[in-house]
């Protein structure tokens, strides 16, 4: 059988071009070259796969030229016709992690080529992309390279061959919300006894099923004087000006948008639409007020029921978006809302 073709993505640091000062290094395709961590991967691949090309890109360059860098790299990868795409590992390097996640997800979604990366669990790229692509969980520094490659290479081979992928604990990837069965070495009761002994001794233990945890937010006291209150609108329903100028993703959004509705009395099919990919967009696109009730609030403004509608609204897509990302967005625009003297916010979902 012919060897699987692998394209490997790394940043300027691992390509030994330089550190932060070289982070603006533009994307570059090196056909036939195996660079840095690629050597270790090649060793693990043995006869089964080979790195046919390496893409090198500076972290700042990638993150500051997201669209262009992504498009360019997709072209580079496509030209090499790989069976599997490997990015990183990025360990705890934040921008590198986000770049690895972004490009790996893009290769998988847009080129249909299975992709995998690796990083430390607290790398911001982990939360953003772990449900989109397989991310091997690594140590927090490059000292963990051996260990990372030992998991990354076999998973890349399996993906490249189209084999079925086992559970996260077997393969070493971060739990991605998909429950997969496998056989443990010990039966459940024995595992329960061991877990209890650890718990009783105050030692760390790992639950096999993390309970879904819901963040409970205590509501603020009611607004006493609505007639003079400044009300803002915020939505996770993806309502954006027609054309989605900020390119908010239809799922697992990585950012939010701030839009001015000064003078806008009604959202129409010609002016606004939804970027959300998780519900049937027909009714939201026909009349976006159904998700973001600007028309009703303008009426209330006129009737004197509210003081005024804030001229900016904030929108993102809630579809599969990481809770950590959503929290980060809100923490940011909540400060802006406060600074703008907003008294209350109406938050709409879908």
């Amino acid at each position, binding site marked *: 059988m012919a060897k699987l073709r692998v394209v490997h993505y790394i940043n300027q640091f691992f390509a030994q071009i330089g550190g932060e000062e070289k982070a603006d290094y533009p994307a570059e395709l090196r056909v036939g070259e195996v660079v840095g961590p690629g050597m270790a991967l090649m060793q693990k691949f043995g006869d089964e796969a080979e790195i046919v090309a390496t893409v090198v890109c500076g972290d700042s360059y990638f993150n500051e030229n997201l669209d262009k860098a992504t498009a360019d790299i997709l072209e580079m990868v496509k030209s090499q016709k790989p069976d599997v795409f490997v990015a990183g590992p990025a360990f705890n390097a934040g921008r590198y992690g986000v770049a690895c996640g972004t490009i790996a997800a893009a290769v998988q979604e847009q080129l249909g080529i299975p992709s995998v990366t690796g990083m430390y669990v607290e790398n911001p790229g982990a939360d953003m992309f772990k449900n989109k692509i397989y991310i091997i969980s690594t140590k927090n520094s490059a000292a963990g390279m051996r260990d990372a490659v030992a998991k990354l290479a076999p998973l890349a081979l399996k993906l490249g061959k189209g084999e079925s992928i086992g*559970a*996260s*604990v*077997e393969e070493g990837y971060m*739990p991605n*919300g*998909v*429950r*997969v*069965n*496998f*056989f*443990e*070495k*010990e*039966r*459940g*009761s*024995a*595992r*329960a*006894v061991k*877990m*209890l*002994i650890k*718990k*009783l001794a105050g030692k760390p*233990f790992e*639950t*096999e*099923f*993390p*309970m*879904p*945890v819901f963040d409970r937010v205590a509501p603020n006291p009611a607004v006493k004087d609505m007639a003079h209150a400044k009300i803002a609108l915020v939505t996770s329903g993806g309502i954006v000006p027609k054309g989605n100028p900020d390119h908010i993703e239809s799922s697992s959004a990585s950012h939010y948008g701030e839009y001015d509705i000064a003078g806008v009395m009604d959202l129409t099919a010609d002016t606004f639409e939804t970027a959300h990919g998780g519900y049937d967009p027909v009714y939201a696109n026909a009349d976006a007020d159904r998700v973001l009730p600007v028309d009703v609030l303008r009426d209330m403004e006129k009737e004197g029921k509210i003081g005024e509608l804030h001229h900016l609204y904030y929108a993102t897509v809630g579809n599969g978006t990481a809770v950590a990302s959503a929290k980060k967005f809100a923490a940011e625009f909540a400060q802006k809302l406060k600074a703008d003297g907003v008294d209350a916010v109406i938050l709409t979902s879908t």
Partner: protein
Amino acid sequence: MKLEIGNIFIKDIQFAAESKVADGVLYVDKAALEKVVLEDETIKAVSFDIAKPGESVRITPVKDVIEPRVKVEGPGGIFPGIIAKVDTVGSGKTHVLKGMAVVTAGKIVGFQEGIIDMSGPGAKYTPFSQTLNLVMVCEPVEGLKQHDYEKAVRLAGFRVATVLGELGRDVTPDETKVYETCGIKEGIEKYPNLPRVAYVQMLQSQGLLHDTYVYGVDAKKTLSTILWPTETMDGAIVSGNCVSACDKNPTYVHENNPVVEDLFAQHGKTLNFVCQIITNENVYLADKQRSSDWTAKMCRLLDLDGVIVSQEGFGNPDTDLIMNCKKIEAQGVKTVIITDEYAGRDGKSQSLADADAAADAVVTGGNANEVIILPKMDKVIGTLDYVNKIAGASEETLQADGSLKVELQVITGATNETGFINLSAR
């Protein structure tokens, strides 16, 4: 309380003119057993068959799996309150026909379930592919109501198991194990530095085909109570539960409860196994509240440090599991809970119907919705007629090549919630 278990290893089962156990072979007189079954006039006919590990055999629909045992010393008898008198069991000496099981099969209701494959990919998901199975399929008299039929088959299984167990009375066991726990004060004195641990077992108790019996009492009419852990080894708890094959506890699992077994393995070493607490899973919410309150109360009253809680079934019991966990933790007693999951065929749905942050230590028996292909077997004991109607099966179940495409749900014991097998999920 001390119980000695003498295991007689059964290496083969054969039909013969006379029932006996000799040199590890169980000889079964079919006609004699038939009489034992037909004592009940509501059973019209019974057929016996033998299924051995590795054979191309599928048993379905399975109702119960029972391990034959006999009490050779000490008070009471196996299946107290049902077959034997109601004396408290769990002490003395008990002989076990190890490596075999009595499997009752046959349709009670149309959507019934339970597959045991003796070989092939399905075999690794059921513990009963590893036992020599004496399968009995009972046919009811015309017009028998489902309640009565369920009861008749349930009891016939226990009668047969008891008769077979009796054959081991005078056989010298191949292996002897001793299980002993002590009273409260004695335990504290004997193991002053070991954490005090109990096993909280939740018993299925929702109604017809969803019942469990303790010393003959329907568990839904019981308050949470305490057992010596050895009592279940003598059949103090039996199954009347035929729905949800993957995560119901057949009588065999009660007799060989793995949590009891594995807590005993650590007893006196890393922990002090104080007792077993049993509680139910009724559908009425006030019953749930009462039962979980009582369970938590007992955990405190017994000054426990930790418990393992196992549940039985899907949906409704998730609520009891979370209530028990939350309330026991609130008493300052640490918990580990055992469950299985219904995460959908794609593994992406929310696994449990209830959740709480207090449940921070969970052992899972795997996703029961996961799909598996079971290839055609040379022989079917029971009937495949109903396979399309069993839990987890769907319209595309029966494939053109005779194989079955089903969810793990249909396999007896696949995601058992006492942790009986090694299946798990992440």
